[in-house]
């Protein structure tokens, strides 16, 4: 057992930062807490670190209740967003500090610090001060300070957000490799879904202090629990169409939305019928919208005419903003696809991956 949050809540005055948060993290698991800013993910991390006291609920590390334990007794290490390196200490002393505080013999400290520096490629920089390092190097020192103690849990609070895009991608891979090597439980906080999808074995999505869904990256992408998760995960975002189901007479079901109508398969119809009210929300990922001319003879879930408003070229693919009436819907197309900016064209929605949500509760229907 790695880490467990048991109905943890945290209030700051009238603001509820975290409400009834329960989460089990397995030993050695890489768990990502994902959500927009102010969703409570950092609060959860800080409560586990012992930097913040929960208003109610308990926190366990290795099945031990640590709720009342001071931060320095919890055997965790944390990487802060701005690294929080001690500016007056050399890289060596920064990494060694946690060991010194634990009264580890000097020779042992030296060995551990040099091992960690080797692992992170910091051996040449041990005498430097943080002020003389680049952003990426500082980030590695912060990591070194965390791994050198071999803690039970690593806590990382948006550790890559201060790096440029290229370095971030590189460090992401290094982190994945590091985790595979160390096999230590990691709780990783981020608002970046790419980081979450690529690094997390599981992702916990939070919003407004509430846990929305916990699952593998694939789970979260393909079976989002509700409208928030569906919209938040995936870039460009999923498009939603709200409409009224209508029986087509032959046992099938159609969903009529303004200027677009979806024809559902029998299995999908059964799902869509579970909506509590008269309406249902249909979710379509951008990769499931295609130009009609390239689509071929297969049955489509919907066909619609739209004006191609903006075409964004990304090299390997293009994102086209299509105007259906005056509403923008984004389609993700292979770059060789023929869409002409400004033209009115016919598009289809592939039937297989439609998602259905109950507009009253926001939950996905299944």
């Amino acid at each position, binding site marked *: 057992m790695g880490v467990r949050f048991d109905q943890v809540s945290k209030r700051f005055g009238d603001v509820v930062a975290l409400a009834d948060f329960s989460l089990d993290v397995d030993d050695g698991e890489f768990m990502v807490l994902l959500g927009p800013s102010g969703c409570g993910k950092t609060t959860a991390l800080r409560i586990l670190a012992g*930097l913040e006291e929960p208003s109610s609920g308990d926190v366990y590390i290795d099945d031990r209740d640590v709720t009342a334990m001071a931060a*320095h007794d919890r055997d*965790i290490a944390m990487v*802060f967003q701005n690294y*929080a390196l001690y500016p*007056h*200490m050399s890289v060596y002393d920064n990494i060694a500090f*946690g060991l010194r*505080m634990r009264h580890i013999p000097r020779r042992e400290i030296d060995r551990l610090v040099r091992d960690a520096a080797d692992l992170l490629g910091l051996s040449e920089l041990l005498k430097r001060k943080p002020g003389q390092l680049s952003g990426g190097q500082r980030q590695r020192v912060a990591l070194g300070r965390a791994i050198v103690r071999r803690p039970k849990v690593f806590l990382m609070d948006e550790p890559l957000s201060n790096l440029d895009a290229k370095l971030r991608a590189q460090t992401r891979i290094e982190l994945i490799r590091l985790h595979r090597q160390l096999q230590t439980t990691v709780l990783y906080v981020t608002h970046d879904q790419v980081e979450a999808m690529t690094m997390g074995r599981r992702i916990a999505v939070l919003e407004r202090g509430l846990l929305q869904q916990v699952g593998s990256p694939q789970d979260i992408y393909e079976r989002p629990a509700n409208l928030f998760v569906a919209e938040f995960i995936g870039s460009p975002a999923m498009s939603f169409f709200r409409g009224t189901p209508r029986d087509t007479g032959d046992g099938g079901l159609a969903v009529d939305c303004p200027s677009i109508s979806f024809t559902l398969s029998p299995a999908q119809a059964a799902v869509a019928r579970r909506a509590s009210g008269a309406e249902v929300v249909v979710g379509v990922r951008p990769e499931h919208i295609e130009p009609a001319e390239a689509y071929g003879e297969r049955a489509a879930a919907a066909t619609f005419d739209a004006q191609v408003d903006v075409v964004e070229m990304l090299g390997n693919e293009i994102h086209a903003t299509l105007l259906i009436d005056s509403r923008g819907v984004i389609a993700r197309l292979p770059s060789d696809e023929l869409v002409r900016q400004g033209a009115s064209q016919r598009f289809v929605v592939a039937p297989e991956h439609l998602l259905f949500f109950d507009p009253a509760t926001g939950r996905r229907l299944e």
Partner: protein
Amino acid sequence: MTAAAQARARRRRRWLQQSLAASPFVLPSLALFCVFVFYPLVRSVWLGFHATDPFGRREVWVGIDQYRDVLTSSDFRHSLLVTGQFALYTVVGSTCLGLYLALLVHRRLPGILFFRTVFSSTVASSVAVSSVMWFRLLNPGVGVLNYVLGKGGLPAEEWLTDPKWALFAVGMTTVWMNVGLATIVILAGLQNIPEELYESARVDGARAWNQFLHVTLPALSPTLLFVSVVGVIFAFESFGQIDILTKGGPLDSTNVIVYSIYREAFLHYNVGLASAQAVVLFVLVLLLTLVQFVAAQRWVFYR
């Protein structure tokens, strides 16, 4: 003309233009400095080379005689010792007390603003007012200090008239006067330390004392250097409280250099000798400040 020479000429012209544009901004303060600092300084050095009659007139060139007298006189050495002791009391006292008070009011608590104001309020009281106030407090007969000590079972002392206590009492008064500024400056320094450093230290296993030692003190070192340099300079130029409380006595036990200069110049009318003393004092303070800065490079960390 070669291209290099042309470039040089152009640079010189631009420098001249910039200097011309800057001069109206510099002149007012330069004028004040000249009248009240540079001229008196040069004049003091010059006076130090001249003996004066008891009315402060008739200047006779005596070369370095007076400087030699100052450096060899046991009175001056005594004054130097007293000044050093006074500086030690006041710098250590006001820096440590200021640090302690600043740490006390650093945390965010309801009503903390009141205490911040109280602790820094002495910065707003003049030397004369503070001295008169402490003169009362230290009074052996009706003073509060002896009354409180008496309640605690401690003997009453003749604070300002006992050579054993006078310098300590004046030092205590000065610490009280300086601690307001020290508290304000150190509090500002404390509030500049990023909170994450403490959090990081906590996660790293540092308890309160180690956080203070490894986070607070290093981050505060430039501030503490500033407070102690200013404290030393204050100590060397303290005059008002000594004039009001002890007049250099008893038995010269509080006769710091500035006070002895004052006595030499305005009671004995020996302006030449006083000037020589002043110049020596100037050089001493300059050296001491330099030493402080150099020594500080070892342990002061500027971010």
